[in-house]
């Protein structure tokens, strides 16, 4: 059942840049991955969802309540980890979390204390809880951001590049946390890491130029490419003399050879080996305009 409904969202900045162009999404509990290249409009969408930015057109509702008209309804149940944020200087992690918890309405001091301790433990910051957050390393600060986003009882968790700067261990720990809570709430994960979406998200969308290019369940989207992805391996000389024929999904240089993934219903003219499609192929083929049509996302 969808809880977050986005309909016809459009945002144009004062410099004329159209960040979002008639975006419509429908998201239910669970993790929803948002993929897209730089400038695709992901952060604008996240900010609008986090009630930090007003869309020019369109409607957002959460649990049936219009967020445009009643942003505080969402704020009362929002967890938000922005891509970039600062903190007050000389204030310890525990104190700042306590303060943010109060702002989020965690009024019972026992609950607050217990939740903060749990979050500090889960984000592996417990030993650093009395240190000023402004002195944290990038990874620690990001973990602090995660902790603050989970304060209270968030029903919509918006996380923008949450694992940037985290070491693999912390990243896994965070993924586990997200997975654990995602069943009960809506989690919007904006990321460049396709693998994360594949591993974590039940639903996803690809955004480019402010428009939703593609959406659906990652496994389903992969399935749709089955038998249509081919790989060519060309040496430097071959690559220089005979560039691959389009339609190309992606190219990579590996060990001095060019690995070229091609989109084709049958064997491509230059030859190639049929390969199992990946979510990366889904993403790149969508960006390259090789996917037939936008999928309406429903959950």
């Amino acid at each position, binding site marked *: 059942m969808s809880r977050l409904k986005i309909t016809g969202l459009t945002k144009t900045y004062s410099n004329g840049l159209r960040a979002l162009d008639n975006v419509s999404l429908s998201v239910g509990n669970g993790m929803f991955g948002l993929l897209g290249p730089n400038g695709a409009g992901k952060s604008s969408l996240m*900010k609008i969802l*986090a*009630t*930090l*930015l*007003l869309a020019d057109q369109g409607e957002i509702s959460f649990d049936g309540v219009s967020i445009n008209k009643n*942003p*505080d309804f969402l*704020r*009362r*149940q*929002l967890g*938000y980890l*922005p891509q*970039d*944020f*600062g*903190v*007050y*200087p*000389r*204030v310890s992690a525990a*104190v700042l979390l*306590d*303060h*943010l918890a*109060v*702002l*989020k*309405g*965690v*009024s*019972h001091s026992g*609950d*607050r204390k*217990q*939740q903060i*301790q*749990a*979050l500090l*433990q*889960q984000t592996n910051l*417990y*030993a*650093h*809880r*009395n*240190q*000023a957050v*402004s*002195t*944290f*390393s990038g990874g620690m600060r990001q973990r602090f951001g995660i902790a*603050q986003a989970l304060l*209270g*009882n*968030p029903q919509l968790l918006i996380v923008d590049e949450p694992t940037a700067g985290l070491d693999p261990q912390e990243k896994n720990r965070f993924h586990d*946390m997200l997975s654990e*809570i995602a069943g*009960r709430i809506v989690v919007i994960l904006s990321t460049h890491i396709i693998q994360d979406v594949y591993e974590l998200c039940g639903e996803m969308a690809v955004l480019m130029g402010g428009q939703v290019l593609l959406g659906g369940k990652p496994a389903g989207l992969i399935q749709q490419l089955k038998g249509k992805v081919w790989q060519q391996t060309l040496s430097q000389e071959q690559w220089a003399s005979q560039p691959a024929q389009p339609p190309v999904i992606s190219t990579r240089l590996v060990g001095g050879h060019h690995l070229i993934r091609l989109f084709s219903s049958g064997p491509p003219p230059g030859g190639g080996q049929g390969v199992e499609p990946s979510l990366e192929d889904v993403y790149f083929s969508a960006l390259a305009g090789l996917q037939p049509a936008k999928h309406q996302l429903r959950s």
Partner: protein
Amino acid sequence: MMARLLTFELNYYGKQRIFQASAVLFFILGLLMTQGRFGGPEVYKNGPYVITFISGLLSIALIFVSALLCVNAVLRDRTHGMQALIFTTGIGRPLYVGIKLLGLLLALSLIASLALLGSMLGPWVLALAPLGRFQMSYYGQAFFFFSLPNALFCGCFCFAAAMAKPKASTVYAAAALLFMGYFAASIWGHSPLMASSAFRPQAPSLWAQLVDPFGLVSFLGETKRWSVYQRNHECYHLTLPFCVNRLLWTGISALVLAFFYARYKLRLPSEASSTRRLSTDSFGPSPYRPVTTLARGGRYAWEVLVSQVGLELRLLFGQATYLWVAALWVFAYGVEIKENLTHGPYDTRFYVTTALVVEQLLPVRLALLLLVFYASELIYRGQHTRMQPLLLSTPLTRPLVYLSKMATLTIVIFLLLSLHLGLGIAAQALMGEEKIELGPYLALYYYSGYPLLLFAGLIVGIQTLISNTYLGMLMSLVVMASSVFGTTLGLEAYWLRFASAPEVTYSAISGFGHYARAHQGYMLYWTLAAGWLAMLTMKLWPNAYQQTPWQRMKAALGQWSTRELLTGGGILVLLGYTGFNIAQKSQGVALGANRSQDQRWQARYEQVYQSRAGWPQPVLTALTLTTDLYPAQQRYVVSGRYQLRNESDSLIRVLWLGRDPSVTSLRLQVAGTLDCQADEALGQFFYPLKQPLAPGQVMRVDFTMEVDRSGDHPFDSENAVVSNGSYIELEKFIPWVGYNERMELKDSQLRARHGLKPRTAVAETDGRYHRLTYENTISTPAGQRVVTVGALKRTWQNAGRAYFQYQTEQPIEPMFALSSMHYEVRTQHRDGITFQVYYHPGQSRNVPAMMESMQKTIRYASRQWSPYPFKHVTLAEIPAYGGAATAYPGVIFSHEKYNFLLNASDTSRLNLVYATTAHETAHQWWAYTIRPKAGPGEAFLTESLAKYTEAVIVQARQGPLKLSSYLKADNELYFSQRNRSARQELPLNQSWQQPYVHYQKGGLALYALGQSLGEAWINRALRRLIHHQAYPKQKPVAQNLIDELKGQAPVWKQKLIENHLEKVVIYDNRIQLRSLKALPQGGYQLGLRIGVDKTDQTALQRLPINDAVEIAVWGAPSGPAKLLYWQTHHLTKRQTLLELRLDQKPTLVQVDPLHYLLDENLANNTVALGP
């Protein structure tokens, strides 16, 4: 490369709103400030003094611009996260720092230049006068010695602070430190910009001159005694202390820069946590689980407020810079308390009573600057720390954010006030005051703190509306300055200047006095205004959706709920009602308040009625009054009966009565008259008499008047009705007969502005005494006592009121003030006279000195001049209403501060209480036995003679040596005030509206004559004057006394009298050591060169010397100085060589050791010879 970097830097400044706004603002300020009356009304608006003054003052304001530009431009790489990019470009530290510093200094210099340009154009643009010849060199000197060095200094200091700790708060704190340093140095150096400097003519100490970073203490100290001519034509002399000051502070700023430059690294701020210990305590595994939230309602709001305020305070106290600011606050105000209470006029000091300390602590304008800086940090914190996304995505509402910021500011103001009054209490305790009253201190939270809170609301409002931090701060400073200094900008009405109200004072007797109640009305008005502003600010507070001011205003206009509209509308209605009420109550003309409406009224009165001044009118010969005082309501009612007598030689056909503008209502009943022709606007009433009043005939006038003296009207120290300590100079406020010169505008510039001719001294043609009998039955609330002129015949109580019936036993001059308060009384009887001192309970420390002074003066005067005319003399205390004391027939009203709170316990100093009392007692002869004809030289026969008496009485008690410091102070005061006056000085016998002539010079001249002619000679002349000119004979003029003094004196003494009293003669005395030899037979041979020069200032010619001049020699083989020689020499040459044989080795020689000869340079009158 350097040129390109500098161009980039300057371009950057050019694009910054704060720079653009500052440049425009300083240009306008320079322009407008030429309107100020710097140095006096006659000083040229484009003269060197005014130009230097303006450039100096504006260079102080550069502190704040410097801080704002520094944070905006110098710290921009850090603010905008560009450091990593810039630091890794390979730009070296010298170039990076150098370009930034150069950019800042050039920007500041440009702003300073624009200010000067404004002051250059101001006089022409605003068509001001008087103007002198345009001289570029005046502007050059002001720029190169004040504007530029101060701009550089401010810039360097703020820049160094930015290098030391690249944070806005550090730079702001550095600016605040600089300003407070200047403030402290100004108090210490007795800067004329400080209110307390009026009676401190002496130059500031070397240390005070050096400590002031802006060089203004030197400039103002040096020019304090400059004549108007000098102010108009001479550039400031670059004195050694000033040059050292400029070099010192340039050096200090260079050193500070070098110090922090040496430590400055092109590295990112090191905030690593490696040194912090980890918290090792363990906590059992705790799985994350969501918790219930409730982000609405009262409890949520309270918890948010507590948490937010707690966090803000934690951030505040975590910054050492604010602690430094607090320390400097203590220092600055500590200096103020100490200087103002231990260095009073005539080298006196005060008891450190709660009242006097509270009076010092009342103004807290410095706090406004701190509030601007701190509020900016508070308001923009979320933005600056980039925490906005986290905060704005919480359910925190705009009102809650606003309230939490205001709550924090309230606590900060409370803490600052607590520090402030804690300082006062500590000062009292440290200076040995035993009685510390907490009540008045606590009241400071309201009187000083509450306006600060209102200002905080305004600052938050401004900085919310203007999203550019620095522009917001600058605008806050501008709005605050216009509120605080609004009157100089023409904003006279309090209701136009935010959070302003009539300034309250504090006195132990009357508490917060005249304005205490009205202040509450104004505070209510401003609270409503602040409430409305708060509503608007909450609406305009940036939220996620509306960030730009335009967006917010648009949104704010469209988002008013019915409840908000009702509340806002209700507040506006109340605001309008309160404002209307205040405006209604404060309507009317007040003499001396000097508002434009008062000036217009006074001008009109003179224009209409001055031409009728010569109309024959009857004089008051008997007055019976009933006066009811209502201190609680600050009003009084007088009803009375006049007996008027035609003492002229003409028939009087019309009786002309006048009403003082302060009288609220007046009912007149004049028997035997036709219909009254009234000019209600000017309060003039003309009664045509049915039967003309023949010479010698009497008539009767009955009247009832009511006077509202509430704080809605300007305070008048001569017409004050307060809860305790009412004082009314009643003769000025009851209806008068004929034309009243008191109503005229006195200020020459104001007169010119209103098209009035300059006032001239007109000698009174009627030389007769017009005395009257006076009877007044005065009622006041029970518990208070009343003092007025006459003998107290009867007292009784009725219906909670106390009644006092006073009656004169002989005709008196028409002078009859009264006072009413809770008094204690000390009574003594000597020589058939009853001496009484009425004083505020607890302020009895100086009563014995007053009592003794009255008795000694009366005994001396009665023996030497004429018997004391009354059977009693009463000295009654009144609150600290400015001035020192006022004498009335048989009564002296003595002001609290300078008489009852003066600490006269140090017997090594002159007892000013004793002197003042002697002065006022002397007026029983020199005002009420002898009443001179009104006109030129009048005050010579009153004030000069009272000053002389004062000196004689003090000398008899404390000896001439202690008197010398007093005479010296008068000598210095004379020159400082004389130089400030542009009007040509008149000789004593023609003195008119030149108080320094009839007070300072008059006392010194008569004392000098006493030393030359002998005290007996003077007394004989005075005795003869009384004999020939006292009531009921003809009133004397100054020449009568001069004639008596000259009497049978030898020619050289007659010449001396003429020089002192009929000319303006200035001395230039010097003493030099020629030789000092030890004699073989013991003793010493001392050779001195005595130089005496004197100039007639009216004729500008040197006068021949024929003077009695004293020479003193002191020795101090060990211990205190011992007088070795003191002799009056009759000198006839400008240079006199003197050979003295002394038993002991001299250490100090002096010419005119008592300093009574008018000599501008007293320093060369003394030579120290060493041990």
